[in-house]
């Protein structure tokens, strides 16, 4: 007898909900064992985590603060991944957009009418994100350069460039030499809705809906769907593969860029260290866990944000080491990802296939 993984033809709705739920319970138990090994009370720890992330209106706004960039980058990554364009450059697109937004906010803010400043900042930021994503898209479609490597490397370029600016020429002359640009003029602040949660939340939710609509209800969305499933088929249909990939990746980059704009205009209100705390990479997990579905991304983003915020709580209130929070996040994600294997594949026990059996015996 041997075990086979067989791709399920249609995935039942129940499995789609039940399996992640069961995986979540499994991960709580696994993590609980780990906590016990450290001499901590798992229930008190989970309570602290939950309280830290959702316990009060204020706590929840902090979860949203982290969820906003995760939603936007998650959407951007999901769109790219649907086309099998492995954009792992969300981090760089976010950062470069933050840099561009900062440039507009601190230099154009001096002469631009104040009602125009924030819209310009947002627009330029998104364009910068799109442009940064456009480079690997063009390289892939024109020269067949692998986008995985290019997007990853461009992250470092963007991050180092931003550091150069706020350590060097853009450093706040009144900042006593500490790295970071001067604070933005108020006209360039993204309005905050509740606590530190800013208008980016509204943008993110609206864009999730819009992206879902475009992908599922428009002709372009249909073309992208075919293209994602099979570029050959798309070509036979007369769909321009290259043009569509470049266009979609520009949108993807703009979404990631908007995340960066939100961070600098809504949260730090200056360019400084800690612009992106790995949001662009976490976005990959968000996109996968949301099964590349734009409507699922906001929920998954809130869940991930809650894990990040609640994870700190483990340290802050329970006195466990910092690495424990990170360990717990990993312990929680692993079963979730493993669980998706069971939704997408069927496990089949089969009688020994003659050939397979011979091979197995040979190995013994």
């Amino acid at each position, binding site marked *: 007898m041997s075990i086979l993984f067989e791709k399920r033809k249609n995935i039942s709705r129940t499995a789609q909900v039940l399996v992640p739920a*069961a995986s979540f*319970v*499994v991960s709580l*138990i696994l993590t*609980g*064992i780990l906590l*016990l090994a450290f001499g901590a*009370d*798992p*229930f*008190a720890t989970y309570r602290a985590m939950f309280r*830290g992330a959702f316990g*009060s209106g*204020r*706590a929840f706004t*902090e979860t949203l*603060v982290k969820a906003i960039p995760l939603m936007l980058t998650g959407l951007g990554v999901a769109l790219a991944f649907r086309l099998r364009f492995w954009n792992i450059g969300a981090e760089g697109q976010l950062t470069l957009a933050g840099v561009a937004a900062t440039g507009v906010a601190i230099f154009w803010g001096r002469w631009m009418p104040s009602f125009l400043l924030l819209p310009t900042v947002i627009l330029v930021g998104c364009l910068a994100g799109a442009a940064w994503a456009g480079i690997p898209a063009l390289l892939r479609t024109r020269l067949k350069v692998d986008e995985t490597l290019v997007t990853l490397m461009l992250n470092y370029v963007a991050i180092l460039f931003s*550091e150069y600016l706020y*350590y060097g020429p853009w450093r706040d002359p009144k900042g*006593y*030499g*500490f*790295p970071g640009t001067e604070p933005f003029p108020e006209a360039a602040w993204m309005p905050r809705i509740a606590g*530190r949660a800013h208008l980016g939340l509204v943008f993110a939710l609206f864009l999730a809906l819009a992206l879902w609509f475009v992908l599922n209800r428009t002709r372009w969305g249909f073309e992208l769907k075919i293209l994602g499933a099979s570029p050959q088929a798309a070509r036979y249909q007369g769909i321009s593969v290259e043009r569509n990939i470049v266009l979609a990746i520009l949108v993807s980059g703009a979404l990631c860029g908007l995340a960066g704009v939100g*961070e600098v205009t809504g*949260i*730090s209100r200056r360019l*400084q*260290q*800690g*612009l992106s*705390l790995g949001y662009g990479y976490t976005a990959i997990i968000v996109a996968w866990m949301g099964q590349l579905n734009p409507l699922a991304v906001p929920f998954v983003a809130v869940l991930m944000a809650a894990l990040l*915020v609640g994870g*700190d*709580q483990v*340290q*802050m*209130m329970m*006195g466990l*080491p*910092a690495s424990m929070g990170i360990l717990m996040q990993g312990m929680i994600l692993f079963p979730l990802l493993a669980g998706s294997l069971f939704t997408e594949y069927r496990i089949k026990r089969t009688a020994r296939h003659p050939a397979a059996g011979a091979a197995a015996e040979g190995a013994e």
Partner: protein
Amino acid sequence: MKNRWNLLWILLAAALIAGCAKKSEPAAVAAKAEPYKVAFVYIGPPGDLGWTHEHDQGRKAVEAEFGDKVKTVYIENVPEGPDATRIIRQYAQEGYDMIFATSFGYMDPMVEVAKEFPKVKFEHCSGYKTAENMSTYFGRIYQPRYLSGIVAGKMTKSNIIGYAAAFPIPEVVRGINAFTLGARSVNPKVQVRVVWTNTWYDPVKEREAAVALLDAGADIIAQHQDTVEPQKAAKERGKLSIGYDSDMRAFVGDTVLTSPVWNWGSYYKDTIGKAMAGTWTTHQYWEGLKAGVVRLADMSPLVPQDVKDLVKAAEQKILDGTWDVFYGPIKDNTGAVKVAAGAKMTDGEMLSFDWFVEGVVGKVK
């Protein structure tokens, strides 16, 4: 498939039992008065053996002093920037009475949160912004740094001393200047070379900076960082070093000639005591050798007696109050006189230091 579920239930039950077993004990605690809750926000881990280690020693001293009248917690590895705002706010929101943040970059985040929680007391280490409910505290570490400079100036053979430094902010510049003045007071040929790491806590970068300085001919490594890595790098090359933050000789060995060290315990005990008694007011604490918040660690046996005597004499002058480090004449490293003979720098000038004294090779900006 069924077996799988059974296993799951067993695990769940096991976890439940284990959880309940723990919960039954602390019923008695509720009868006592609520302890005064104090939180510390750290830039690195207490295991850095340097900066954060010393703050954590202070926190432990508070626990030892007040017993179960206080409850202290800390969070380590908090990046300077927007995330710090969230962390500080969470403590405030969870009902902590007093919050300490121990890195310069936490200043603006703390100011932001302090506005929102007027009843919570905030203390920020090494910054300059205060509020009704927010104080600053720091120590005149430049005094023991000057003394450690005397040791380095006497012990160097190549007359090149390397200095691995975090950020070009006044705090760090002041330290480099004090150290250089000390070294050149006994050896006018000394050059102090500075490498900026642009990080407080990064063991790898700190080490790399020290190695670059050793390659440039330095035979003693001084530092303004959070860990012992520069000291270890020097030791591996058979070179000497001057530590910082903690008595790094205890962790690295006798190649660490001495270290300017922090002693936060007395300050933390004092200010938390005042807060508990209700006599706490906004303050800007900046004391030195005399108050004991900073000192020079015991010297390595490699330091000869005559050098120890020189240090002792200089220390005595500072303790007596007859002289201090930034008394003129002082020239900057372009040769211009910045402090005339007979004049002395004010606290304000020292807190906004943006130039190097003569003998420092490097630029602030």
